[in-house]
């Protein structure tokens, strides 16, 4: 089997396992949350002022919440096997319809964040790696550590304070166009760039110190030529591999950042679904997030394969 098909097969198995585990675990987690589930759903549907035992009883009867857990879980699994995510317990809409709209917003935000972080992180890391040990390098380390240590929520508020309140350039929330996209994307991107700049810096420093790089210089290439021909590709392999790991941060960040910036994505919707005990929505959003993770990791694998010929030889 070639490296390519092995990767794809492994990821397909992973996707299946993720779907199964996510469905079962989210179901059990939501059911074990404290509080009466029918009450929460009633509150989500009709508002806090309308929460009453009578409303909760109607909800429970309508949704069959008093059936055994196992029956409800099996029903979801049977539906998912037929690619049916069910309908939201709160809004009554089909989960797949809501996810379709929200996924678009989340993908837009994630890709913008990833793109911005690639514009900021690796070039910065490359420059600092070439000057490893300098004052700028050390300052970069401190800045990266500080940004990474800030939770996305705080980072987002700081950016709003700077760009919206002090400078007045960008709106603090909303989802109409690129102006609204920039701040949430930047919040996520800075966290990503903080880490990727350090990985790029270390990789570059390693490459620059490597014997083959010294050889490239000896055979007469300029610094620039040596970097472009022998440096970038070698330094990019760990960087791309690390990108896969960073996606965890991205998906986690999306949940918080979307809520902060009122961005109508799946992360925001997940938070709401949990508050409203909207089990099909929780399962649907978590499933989509899990699958995005698998797909992006597969993409990272393929990219690494393309970048690094040693992997293609098949170890």
């Amino acid at each position, binding site marked *: 089997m070639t490296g390519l098909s092995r990767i794809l097969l492994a990821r397909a198995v992973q996707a299946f396992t993720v779907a199964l585990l996510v469905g079962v675990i989210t179901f059990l987690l939501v059911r074990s949350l404290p509080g009466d589930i029918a009450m929460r759903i009633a509150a989500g549907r009709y508002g806090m002022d309308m929460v009453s035992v009578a409303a909760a009883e109607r909800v429970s009867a309508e949704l069959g919440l008093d059936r055994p857990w196992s029956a409800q879980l099996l029903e979801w699994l049977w539906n998912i096997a037929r690619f049916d995510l069910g309908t939201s317990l709160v809004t009554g809409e089909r989960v797949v319809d809501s996810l379709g709209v929200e996924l678009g917003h989340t993908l837009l935000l994630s890709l913008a964040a990833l793109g911005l972080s690639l514009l900021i992180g690796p070039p910065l890391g490359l420059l600092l790696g070439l000057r490893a040990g300098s004052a700028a390098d050390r300052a970069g380390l401190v800045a990266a550590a500080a940004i990474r240590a800030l939770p996305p929520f705080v980072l987002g508020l700081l950016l709003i304070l700077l760009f919206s309140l002090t400078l007045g350039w960008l709106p603090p*929330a*909303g989802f109409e*166009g690129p102006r609204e996209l920039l701040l949430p994307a930047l919040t996520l991107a800075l966290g990503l760039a903080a880490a990727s700049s350090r990985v790029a810096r270390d990789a570059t420093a390693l490459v620059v110190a490597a014997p083959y790089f010294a050889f490239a210089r000896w055979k007469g290439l300029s610094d620039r030529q040596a970097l472009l021909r022998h440096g970038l590709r070698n330094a990019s392999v760990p960087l791309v591999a690390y990108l896969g790991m960073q996606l965890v941060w991205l998906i986690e960040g999306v949940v918080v950042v979307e809520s902060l910036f009122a961005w109508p994505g799946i992360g925001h919707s997940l938070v709401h679904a949990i508050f409203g005990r909207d089990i099909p929505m929780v399962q649907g959003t978590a499933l989509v997030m899990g699958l995005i993770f698998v797909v992006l990791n597969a993409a990272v694998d393929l990219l690494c394969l393309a970048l690094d010929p040693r992997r293609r030889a098949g170890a």
Partner: protein
Amino acid sequence: MLSRRMLARLSGAALAMPALPASAQPRATLRVVTPWEIGGLDPARSGYIFARMQVAETLVTTGTDNTLTPLLARAWTVSDDGLAWTFSLRPGVTFHDGTALSAEIVAASLRRAQTPPGILSNAPLAAIEAAGDAVRIRTSQPFAALPAFLAHSSTLILAPAASGPDGAVRAIIGTGPFRITSLTPPQGFEAVRFDAWWGGKVPAAGARYLAAPRGETRTLMADTGEADLVFNLPPTAFQRLSRSARVAFVTAPIPRSYILKINAGGFFFGDRRVRQALSAAIDRTGIAAGILRTPDSAATQLFPPSLAGWHDPALPPLVHDASLARRLLAEAGWRPGPDGVLVRDGRAFRVTLRTFPDRPEQPVLATAIQAQLKEIGIAVEVAIGNSGDIPLGHRDGTLDLGLAARNFSLVPDPIGTLLQDYGPEGGDWGAMGWTGPGSADLATTIGTLSRTFDPAAAAALRRRATAILQDELPVIPLAWFIHSVASGRHLAGVTLDPFEQSYRLSDIRFGA
């Protein structure tokens, strides 16, 4: 924290963004920001959003003088036996899809509104039918508050095309001055002016709704001028925004009160003197000034002054008097125990206070009350859970104390809430285990009031109800709710509807 290079890059990126649709928006679009997300299109779920944004309309609403005024109904009459109502419809009304409003459509909308648990399912309705250009509603008993019930957002009138074949609402096609052009639940929608509105042409070219659940975000949107009207600001924002040059900050009390729900049927609070002691131990002025940041909101009785006819200025106010509280408790047989906690019949005065964090100030209020009751020898444990814990504790009898904010204007007439809360068996958010002559008297008074059409007789009954509540304290009023809006200073004609029926966007003009 940000390196200079990064900052330069970022600002470069910001300036290089090509299209700027938001800033290119004509200034005549009203941008409204609130905490409420669109949780489904059925009027029983998020109808209040479409009503307040004036996309869809009800038969009745509240006017600027806080009395019921006609909206889609032109006028209404009731038969002499008080059982048959006729609502004649405003002529020349069309829906956003061009359909003409008819009595059949209204009757169908109202019948649909009876199904979900909500306001209309609590009214004693017998039949709803179209009769020419009027809608006739029969009730099974005289029910004076019916027009107020038809102001509730679950009774919004939508076009037939708004519902799918299964009866579920698929789109909001209303009759209001704003027509939705794009809807993105749960976050918001965009609407343009509906030129064929029966009320004429409104000044704003359109309206945009955005739900921003975080108070910090809303405060910043008001502060930066990215929104024209921002509702429900957190108390922490009051001071900051009232100094802003960009926004005018308006607050008004609305018919909602923070209350302490009491299990009056249990060992601890069955004695009226204990409830009065509890009330006297609470420093409402301190709570209002320190936690809610609105010193005027300390409750002197259950109903706030905005509920004209229910708020009785002549009623002796609830006072803060710790020595009175101690005396009342001693009269009721409570003696200080060895650890300072009161004891009666060998049982220490230890109770649990339940509340929930959906309104972030509630847990803070609960701990303030915990501290204040400790001073008179009552040990309170604060339990923070879900909003459903209080109704559940009411049903299974395990609740001691519950802290919540109760809305008296679910319909613009508090009788709707009172019938739910203070009926013979109390209510999930009202009296619990409260018995005796006062309880029976209040239930009778409210029952009679709901059948009383004569204004003078109704006023006397309302005063009686208020007096019983003040004397018996089946729930303890803490503070009145303050509604807040930050509006851009470039707007004129912004007014607050204390009944939250409408944001009154159709009156707003763009000034300086």
